[in-house]
C-alpha cells in the first residue's frame, strides 16, 4: 500500500484534476503534494518490504533494490521543488489544467521507475515519463518549443524503440523480468552482444550522452521552469539508472564498455563546457552544463564498469553524483525561473546572485559543497583506474570548465536581470531558497549514507584548496575569456550539428513528402481495380462482343455442329 501510494499518488491527483470541476487553479497548487508520499517513503521507509503485485501489468514489483532509494529520494526532492515552484508560478497559465495533469503524470513516471524492480514496470514508468515530458516541453507553444518538442519526440521514440528491443533481449537472456536476475545474467554476456548497444543508445538518449544529446539543450530551455527542473534534475538520471541496471556494473568487468563510457563521458564533459560558454540563454547554458555533468557521471560509470574491483567504491560515488547534480541543477533552474522577471537593484541583485551561486559552486566542486565530495572520490578512483595519467589532468580541467560555465551562467543571469522589470515574487523565491538549501544540505546527509565519501566540511587546507582553485581560476579567467577571446566568433563558423541535421532532414523530408511514394494512393494494391481494367476496358469489351457475334452466325454454328459431332464420334471409336 505504501508503495502504491508513494508511486501513484501523483496519478491520483491527476485523475482527480481531470474529472473534478473545481477551479483548476487549485489543482496547480496541489501538484506540489504529488511527490510527498514518495519523499516520505524515501526518507523513512528504509525497511519497508518490497511490494509484489502479480496481477498488475505483467506482475509489478516495487522496491528499493540497490539504487532505488537514492533515486527516489532525488526524484521526490526535485519534484517537490518543481511542484512547489509550479504552484507558485503556473497558476495564471491558460493551460494550467492540462499542464498540471501532465506534470503529475511525468512525476509519477519518474518516481515509479526509480523503485521499479522489474523490466516491465520500469519500462512502463519510463515511457509514461517520456511521452508526458513531451507535452511539458511544448507547453509554452512558441515556435522554439515546437521545434524542441519535435526533436525531443523523434529522439525519444527512437530511444524507446531501441530500449524495448534491448529490454526484450535482456529478458530473454535472463529468462526473468527481475533486475536482480538480469544483472546476474548480463554479466556472462559478451560485450559485443547487441543488447548492450541497444540499451546504451536507448538510455543514452535520455541521459544526454555526447552524440545523443541533441534534444537536451533544446528541450530543457523550452519547457516551463518547473518542468525544466524536473527534466534536468530527475528525468535525465533515469538514463543513468538504466545503465546501472543493464550493464554488469557490480558483477563483472567489461573493460571495453568501461573505456568507451569513460572516453565518451570525458568528451561530453568538455563538449558541454564549450557549448555552454557559447550560449546566451541561461537555461541553455544550464542544459549544456547538464550534458557536461552527465558526461562526468558516464565517466564514473565507465570506471566502475572497467574494473569490478573499483565498482564497490564507484557506485556510491555515482549515486552521490546523481543526487548532487540533480539537486543543484534543479535549484539552478528554479533560480532562473524565479529571477527571470526580477528587477536587479543593488542589494537584491547581490543576494539573488549569491543564492544562485551556491548551487553553481556546488556543481563546480567548491569546498564545503557536495561537489567537492564527488570530485575527490572521482579523483581517487580515477587514479586507480585506467588512463589515470590522462584523467589526472583532464578531471581538474573539467572542474575548471564547470566553473567557467557556471560563471558564464551567472553572468548571463545578471544580464537578464538588468533588462527585467518586475520584482521577484516572494513565494517563488522561497521555493527556490528551499531548493538551494536542500542542495547545500546534501553533504550532511550524504556522509551518513555513503561511508566512502569524504566529508565536505574538512578543515584540511589541501582538501579545501583542491576544491577551491578551479573555482577561483574560473572566476579569474572568465572575464578575461569573455573580453579577450571572441568565443562566439571563433565557434560561430562551427556548424551546429542539430541545425545541420535538421536542415538536411527538412530537405530530404520535404522531398520525400512530395515524392510520389508519399501520395496516399501510392503502393495501393487493389486487384479489383486491376481486373476491372481488363473486364470493362474498351478492348476487352470489343473482343468478346465480336466473338459472341460470330458464334451467332449460322454458318459458324453449323460448322461447330459438324466438328463437335465428328470429334465426339471419333473419340467414341477410340477406346
Amino acid at each position, binding site marked *: 500500500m505504501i508503495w502504491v501510494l508513494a508511486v501513484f499518488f501523483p496519478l491520483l491527483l491527476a485523475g482527480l484534476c481531470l474529472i473534478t470541476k473545481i477551479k483548476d487553479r487549485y489543482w496547480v497548487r496541489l501538484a506540489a503534494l504529488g511527490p510527498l508520499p514518495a519523499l516520505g517513503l524515501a526518507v523513512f521507509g528504509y525497511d519497508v518490504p518490497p511490494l509484489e503485485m502479480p496481477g498488475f501489468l505483467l506482475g509489478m514489483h516495487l522496491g528499493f533494490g540497490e539504487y532505488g532509494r537514492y533515486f527516489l529520494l532525488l526524484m521526490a526532492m526535485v519534484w517537490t521543488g518543481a511542484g512547489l515552484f509550479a504552484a507558485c508560478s503556473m497558476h495564471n497559465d491558460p493551460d494550467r489544467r492540462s499542464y498540471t495533469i501532465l506534470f503529475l503524470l511525468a512525476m509519477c513516471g519518474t518516481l515509479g521507475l526509480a523503485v521499479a524492480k522489474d523490466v516491465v514496470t520500469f519500462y512502463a514508468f519510463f515511457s509514461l515519463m517520456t511521452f508526458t515530458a513531451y507535452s511539458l516541453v511544448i507547453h509554452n507553444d512558441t515556435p522554439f518549443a515546437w521545434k524542441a518538442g519535435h526533436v525531443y519526440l523523434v529522439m525519444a521514440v527512437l530511444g524507446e524503440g531501441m530500449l524495448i528491443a534491448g529490454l526484450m533481449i535482456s529478458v530473454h537472456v535472463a529468462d526473468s523480468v527481475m533486475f536482480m536476475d538480469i544483472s546476474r545474467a548480463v554479466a556472462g554476456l559478451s560485450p559485443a552482444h547487441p543488447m548492450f548497444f541497444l540499451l546504451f543508445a536507448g538510455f543514452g538518449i535520455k541521459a544526454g550522452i555526447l552524440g545523443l544529446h541533441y534534444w537536451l539543450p533544446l528541450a530543457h530551455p523550452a519547457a516551463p521552469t518547473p518542468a525544466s527542473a524536473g527534466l534536468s534534475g530527475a528525468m535525465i538520471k533515469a538514463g543513468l539508472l538504466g545503465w546501472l541496471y543493464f550493464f554488469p556494473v557490480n558483477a563483472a568487468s567489461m573493460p571495453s564498455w568501461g573505456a568507451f563510457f569513460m572516453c565518451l563521458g570525458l568528451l561530453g564533459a568538455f563538449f558541454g563546457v564549450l557549448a555552454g560558454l557559447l550560449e546566451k540563454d541561461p537555461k541553455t547554458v544550464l542544459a549544456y552544463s547538464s550534458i557536461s555533468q552527465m558526461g562526468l557521471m558516464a565517466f564514473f560509470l565507465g570506471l566502475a564498469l572497467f574494473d569490478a574491483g573499483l565498482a564497490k567504491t564507484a557506485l556510491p560515488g555515482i549515486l552521490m553524483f546523481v543526487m548532487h547534480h540533480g539537486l543543484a541543477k534543479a535549484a539552478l533552474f528554479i533560480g532562473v525561473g524565479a529571477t527571470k522577471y526580477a528587477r536587479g537593484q543593488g542589494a537584491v541583485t547581490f543576494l539573488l546572485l549569491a543564492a544562485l551561486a551556491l548551487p553553481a559552486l556546488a556543481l563546480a566542486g567548491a569546498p564545503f559543497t557536495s561537489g567537492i565530495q564527488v570530485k575527490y572520490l572521482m579523483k581517487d578512483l580515477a587514479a586507480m583506474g585506467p588512463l589515470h595519467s590522462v584523467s589526472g589532468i583532464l578531471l581538474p580541467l573539467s572542474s575548471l570548465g564547470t566553473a567557467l560555465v557556471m560563471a558564464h551562467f551567472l553572468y548571463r543571469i545578471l544580464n537578464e536581470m538588468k533588462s527585467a522589470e518586475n520584482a521577484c515574487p516572494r513565494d517563488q523565491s522561497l521555493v527556490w531558497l528551499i531548493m538551494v538549501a536542500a542542495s547545500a544540505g546534501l553533504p550532511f546527509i550524504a556522509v551518513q549514507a555513503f561511508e566512502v565519501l569524504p566529508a565536505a566540511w574538512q578543515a584540511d587546507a589541501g582538501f579545501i584548496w583542491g576544491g577551491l582553485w578551479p573555482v577561483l581560476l574560473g572566476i579569474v579567467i572568465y572575464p578575461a575569456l569573455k573580453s579577450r577571446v571572441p568565443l562566439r566568433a571563433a565557434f560561430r563558423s562551427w556548424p551546429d550539428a542539430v541545425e545541420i541535421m535538421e536542415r538536411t532532414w527538412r530537405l530530404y523530408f520535404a522531398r520525400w513528402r512530395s515524392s510520389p511514394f508519399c501520395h496516399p494512393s501510392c503502393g495501393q494494391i487493389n486487384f479489383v481495380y486491376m481486373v476491372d481494367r481488363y473486364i470493362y476496358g474498351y478492348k476487352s469489351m470489343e473482343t468478346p462482343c465480336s466473338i459472341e457475334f460470330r458464334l451467332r452466325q449460322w454458318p459458324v454454328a453449323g460448322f461447330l455442329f459438324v466438328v463437335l*459431332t*465428328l470429334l465426339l464420334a*471419333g473419340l*467414341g471409336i*477410340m*477406346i
Partner: protein
Amino acid sequence: MESLLVLVPLAAAMGSFLAPGRGIASWGFLTSLAIPALAAGTAMDVYQHGARRISLGGWAEPLGIHLHMDGLSVIFLIMTALVGALISIYSAFFFKRDTARHFWPLWLLMWAALNSLFMVSDIFNAYVVLELVTICAAALAVLSGKTESLQAGLRYLMVAMAGSLAFLLGVGFLYAETGMLDMFMLSWELQGGPVAAAAFGLMTTGLVMKSALLPFHFWLPPAHGEAPAPVSALLSALVIKGSFFLLLRLWVGVFEPAGITSHAAYVLGCLGVLAVLWGSYQALIQPRLKLIIAYSSVAQVGYLFLMFPLLCTVPEAPWAEKAWAGGTYQAISHGLAKAALFLAAGNLILSTGTDRIHYMKNIASRLPMTTFTLGLAGISLMGLPPSGGFVAKWMFMQAILESGQWWWAVAPVLGGLLTAGYVFRILGYAFLLAEKEPRMLPVPFVLEKIPLILALCSILIGFRAEEIIFLLQEHMLWAIEVEGDS
C-alpha cells in the same frame, strides 16, 4: 400415380384450351396443387421401395411404352413440380387475360411433356416428348409477340429442331446397331464400334445444342431475355434441364457401359468449363437485367457438364457418387434459384418499367423483398453455404479433387467468383441512391412472395442434403439394371 403425373397437366391443358374463360388460371392452380402431391407420392414410393418400371397399357418390352422411375427422375420431377407450381401461381397474377389464354395451355402441355420426359425409358419416345417440350417452349418464348421475341423464338425453334433431328438420326443408328430402343436394354446390349460412336456423336451434339452448352448457347440469351418473366423462368429452370436430363441418362446409362465416353467426356468437360467462364463473363458485362440472368444460365449449364468427365471417364470410379450428387444438386438448385431470379427480375421490370440495370437504382429500400430474393438466389448460384449451390459445389469439388482431375476446379472456383461479380453488380445498383426519386409502380403481394419462396427453397435444400443424396445414391440408374432386366 405415375401416369397421372402426365395425364393431369395434359387434361388441364386441354381444359384450359377449350375453356379459356375468366377462370382459366384455375386450371393452372389445380394442376399446381395436384402435381406436387403426386410427385411427392412418387418420390416417397421410390424412396421406400427403390426404382420402378411401369409398362403403360400392358404392352410388352420392345413395343410398349415404359415409364422408368428412379432417384434421378424423382428428383427432377419434384423440382419441376415445385418450380412449376410456384411459377403457375406467379403467372396467374402476372398475365393479362389475352396472354393467359395462350399461356396456360402451352405451359400445362409443356409440364406434361416434361414430366413424361423425366420418366421416359425409350429413346424414341424421349425424342417425341423432347420435341413437344421444344415446340411449347418456343411458343411460350414468343408470347409477348414483339419482333425481337419472334426472332429469338424462331431461332430457338430451328436450332432445337436441328438438334432433335441429329438426336433422331442417332436413335436410328442405335436401332440399326442393336435393334432396340429401350435405354436400359441398350445399356446391356450396346457395344462400342463406329455406328455406336456415330450415334453417340449425333445424339450428344443434338442434346448439347438444345441444352445451350457453350458454342451453341447463342440462341439462349435472346430467347430467355425477350420472353415474359415467368416464361423465362420456365425456360431456364426446366426446359434446359429436360435435354440435359436426357443427355445424362444416355451417357451414364447407355454410352458409358459401352465404353464410348471415356475420351469424349473430356471434350464436354472442357466445353463446360469454357461455358462457365464465358457465360459468367458475358453476364458481367451485360447492361440488361434479363440478359445477365440468361447468360448466367449459360454459365450454370456449363457446371452441369462437369459431371461427364467425372462420371464417364473411369469405370467404377470411387468419386462417381459425389460427382453424380453434385451435378444433380446443381441442376435442382439452379432450377430453383434461376426461377427465383427471373421472377424477381420480372418484378423489377414491372416496377421500374425498364430492363436496364442502370435505372434500377435504390430498389433496395423500395422493394426490399425483391432485393432480398435476388440476394438469396444469388447466394445459391454462387455456391455459398448454406445453400443448394453449396452442396453441389462441395460435392463437385470433392469429386474433382479425388479424381485427380484438378483442372476442373477452375470452373467452380472462378465461376463462383464471377457469379458473385454479376449478382452483386445487380445488387450494387439496387443499393445505389437515386439522384431523383424514380417512378416506381407497386408490385402485387403474391408476385413478391413467390420468388422469395423459390429462393428460400434453393437455400433450404442445402440443409437437407441427406435425403436427396440418399435418393440419388441408393437408387441410381444403374442400380436397377438387374431389376429392369428381369
